[in-house]
């Protein structure tokens, strides 16, 4: 068993920031990650990092934009904290050497981005995430932070208590991919889950193959509720064949969307007469799909994004990376022709419920980054708001876990924050099939941390042995089934029937998963095993997304329902919560906090 003060699971932007913060606080911290840190998907972020840095801009404007962008499903304490901390975090990055793009006077450049009232997006070419990730990894190296590289965390070690709020997290269990060893990790201060997104629940996504929602599923099964899982952002500009993202920066710099009739669709059809191409992502994504459904798409699949009029010099200066992406992955020269784009899964606004300090309702269990839902993005994330989230809340989780005295969180977590019981009628029973045998929190009357961990290790060992030894079908089929039904039925446009179909399909897939086995017998670098475990996690998160989507009977932010095409503020300014109770998801609601530090946010119509 390994022992540290703070264990950070995942070494993307959020994990690295958390680790550095914990280290700064004097904690002995370790990163446990299934990919080497620099391979994390934070590296794929292109557009930028929002922060109110300049004269004339201020944190409350940023907060206001964020709240408005969230369609009033964000919690004000989270948003205020975020907007206040962001500038300092960005400057911190600059001090750590991040190669930001610069103005003539040597200051960090900022550009306009969708949904922002001020050009406050800092960036480093079109490879902002790459630079952010590498800069932070470098700082982690500088501090000598220990990294367990290519260790796959299969579970957290949590005490068994009926009430999740009374559970304690003492560590986690990880599988060393290279050697096949399974080990316990004891964390005296806390475990921070920063495992990134869950895009692999869909088959057309901008997310990496490794973004399988592991952290969400692990926390969910351990008893931390999932919040607003139905809120999935679809990015309007992804390359049709691969899902590779074409940054919003292209539209920020002035790129234009055309349909098959070469009409500037955002204006011609009145999707966003004020902001045009700069409208928020959900608006643009729906506009594109509406065009395609109306027969005005190209090849009945996509629309065109044109940036040729920006001129070669400007394109190369600011968007060079886009040229490479279009060329390498779509065979299109962006200087010469418009680029084909269509919406693709991009970001999960929902995730593990936690407060401004990153804490979940389970003592010692934290979440940060895309895995977490503080709730900052509410129903829709603004472009350029995820990277600062990694910094702000990653750092806060790190400090808190390492024991820094911080302001008590205003956001309530855990089932006791419930304001209203939910009812949703899934066509089939959701949840685990073989209750109790594998997931649910760890065990016995054991309260002594070491034995909690040992028990979890033993259970995980057994689970893995079983997968390796039995004989059965390949997980890839199950995964494909889930991805397909999610893309077909839980996409940008959602309908009750479709959502139910998805739940049925997921149930089927769960049954299939009972028969899944790993055919590669090796203990050395067994990716078959890893992917098989990931698929189980995908099942849980896909189901949670669909349940949330079925429950929320309104149109808010990224969530659109055919039956309810209006935002229904009287009833729906509340978070959809899912708690895993002995293998069965239970739906309930939690109020949204609109009272901020400066003002109480008044829900307004989103005019863009």
């Amino acid at each position, binding site marked *: 068993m390994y022992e540290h003060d703070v264990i950070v699971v995942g070494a993307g932007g959020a994990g690295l920031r958390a680790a550095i913060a914990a280290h700064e606080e004097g904690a002995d911290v370790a990163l446990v990650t299934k990919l080497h840190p620099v391979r994390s998907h934070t590296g794929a972020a292109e557009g930028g990092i929002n922060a109110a840095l300049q004269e004339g801009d201020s944190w409350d404007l940023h907060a206001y934009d964020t709240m408005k962008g969230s369609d009033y499903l964000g919690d004000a304490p989270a948003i205020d904290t975020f907007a206040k901390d962001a500038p300092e975090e960005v400057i911190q990055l600059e001090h750590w050497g991040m190669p930001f793009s610069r103005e003539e006077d040597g200051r960090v450049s900022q550009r306009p981005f969708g949904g922002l009232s001020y050009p406050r997006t800092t960036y480093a070419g079109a490879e902002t995430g790459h630079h952010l990730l590498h800069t932070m990894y470098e700082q982690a190296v500088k501090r000598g932070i220990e990294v367990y590289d290519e260790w796959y965390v299969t579970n957290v070690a949590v005490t068994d208590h009926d009430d999740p709020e009374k559970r304690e997290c003492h560590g986690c269990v990880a599988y060393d991919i290279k050697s096949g060893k399974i080990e316990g990790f004891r964390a005296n201060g806390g475990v921070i889950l920063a495992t990134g997104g869950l895009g692999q629940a869909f088959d057309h*996504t901008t997310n990496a193959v490794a973004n399988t929602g592991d952290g969400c599923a692990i926390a969910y099964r351990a008893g931390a509720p999932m919040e607003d899982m139905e809120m999935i952002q679809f990015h309007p500009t992804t390359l049709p064949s691969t899902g590779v993202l074409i940054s919003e920066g292209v539209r920020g710099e002035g790129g234009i969307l055309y349909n098959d009739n070469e009409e500037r669709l955002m204006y011609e059809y009145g999707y966003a007469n004020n902001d045009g191409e700069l409208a928020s992502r959900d608006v643009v994504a729906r506009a594109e799909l509406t065009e395609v459904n109306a027969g005005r798409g190209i090849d009945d699949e996509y629309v065109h994004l044109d940036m040729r009029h920006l001129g070669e010099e400007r394109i190369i200066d600011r968007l060079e990376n886009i040229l490479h992406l279009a060329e390498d992955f*779509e065979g299109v020269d962006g200087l010469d022709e418009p680029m084909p784009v269509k919406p693709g899964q991009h970001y999960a606004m929902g995730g593990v419920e936690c407060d401004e300090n990153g804490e979940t309702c389970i003592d010692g269990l934290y979440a940060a980054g895309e895995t977490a839902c503080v709730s900052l993005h509410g129903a829709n994330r603004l472009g350029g708001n995820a990277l600062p989230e990694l910094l702000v809340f990653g750092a806060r989780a790190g400090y808190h876990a390492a024991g820094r005295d911080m302001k008590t969180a205003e956001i309530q977590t855990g089932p006791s924050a419930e304001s209203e019981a939910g009812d949703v009628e899934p066509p089939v029973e959701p949840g685990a099939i073989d209750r109790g045998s594998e997931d649910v929190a760890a065990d016995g009357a054991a309260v002594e941390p070491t034995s909690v961990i040992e028990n979890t290790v033993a259970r995980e060992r057994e689970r893995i042995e079983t997968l390796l030894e039995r004989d059965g079908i390949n997980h*890839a089929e199950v995964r494909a089934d889930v991805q397909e039904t999610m893309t077909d039925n839980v996409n940008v446009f959602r309908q009750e029937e479709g959502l139910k179909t998805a739940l049925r399909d997921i149930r089927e897939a769960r049954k299939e998963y009972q028969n899944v086995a790993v055919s590669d017998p090796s203990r050395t670098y067994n990716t078959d095993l890893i*992917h098989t475990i990931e698929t189980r996690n995908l099942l849980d998160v896909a189901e949670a997304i669909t349940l949330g989507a079925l429950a929320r009977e309104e149109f808010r932010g990224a969530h659109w329902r055919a039956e309810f095409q209006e935002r229904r503020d009287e009833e729906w300014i509340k978070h959809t919560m899912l708690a895993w109770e002995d293998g069965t998801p239970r739906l309930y609601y939690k109020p949204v906090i609109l009272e901020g530090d400066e003002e109480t946010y008044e829900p307004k119509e989103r005019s863009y």
Partner: protein
Amino acid sequence: MSTQIEKQETETEEQESEPAVESPGEKRREQKRQRQAEREAQRETEEATLDDEETVTLKVFRYDPEVEGKQEPRFDDFRVPFHKGMTVLDALIYARDRYDSSLTFRHSCRQAVCGSDALFVNGRQRLGCKTQLSDLDGPVRIEPLPHQEVVKDLVVDMEHFYEQMHAVEPYFDADEVPEGDLEEQRQSRENREKVKMSTRCIWCGACMSSCNIAAGDNEYLGPAAINKAYRFAMDEREGENRKQERLRIIEQEHGVWRCQTQFSCTEVCPKDIPLTEHIQELKRESVKNNLKFW
């Protein structure tokens, strides 16, 4: 794109004719056996019916120190249907998900930013996800990166590469940082432009694997690490003291002087970093630096 595979018809067929006496477990296992046999049969027919015109044959290096039959390195052939825009990585994923789930390789982002899938494809270091099959002559030979220990199949041990990267103190470390919380350091556009290419490295290891010198001298820092050093040594925000220390690191015996300007690193770098140029500039920089003290 994703790891998704097409749904296979046969599997959705119900199997109802099982005798009722069997225990559920046995029944399940029986079903699985059948399913596997069907799958195998299907794979065979599928492979057999694949039209030569539209398939690509992959010759993939296989090795597993643990598994009998794979301890001796060998090549396996996979025939994969070809579609326009298909990359080497897509083909590998197809082969893995359809034919042999034990086929092992690293990959994640599918868009040339994570640096996981540098492979030796048709005799050259390339990123699987960034290499179009249509640009290659078939059969496509896929091997792990040369000059690194093979862990299994296409996975090599990157530890040594990481060590070399870490050896150049790869982190920004300014002599002084401006006072005041929100005071940023200034950097001229020219200076950012100067380091721009060097900051693009994704740690894929292709360059190191292609360098003859690095293959022969295990302690040679290698092009990627030297490029990393360049990135910081040339950054005007760091200051003169730090630069001196950086030059001291790259001037050591296994540092820049080992480079024999073979250019293969520059040729294979998927991020088009002019590695040789950066190495050469550092050589000149350190000579200049030394002349000052004469």
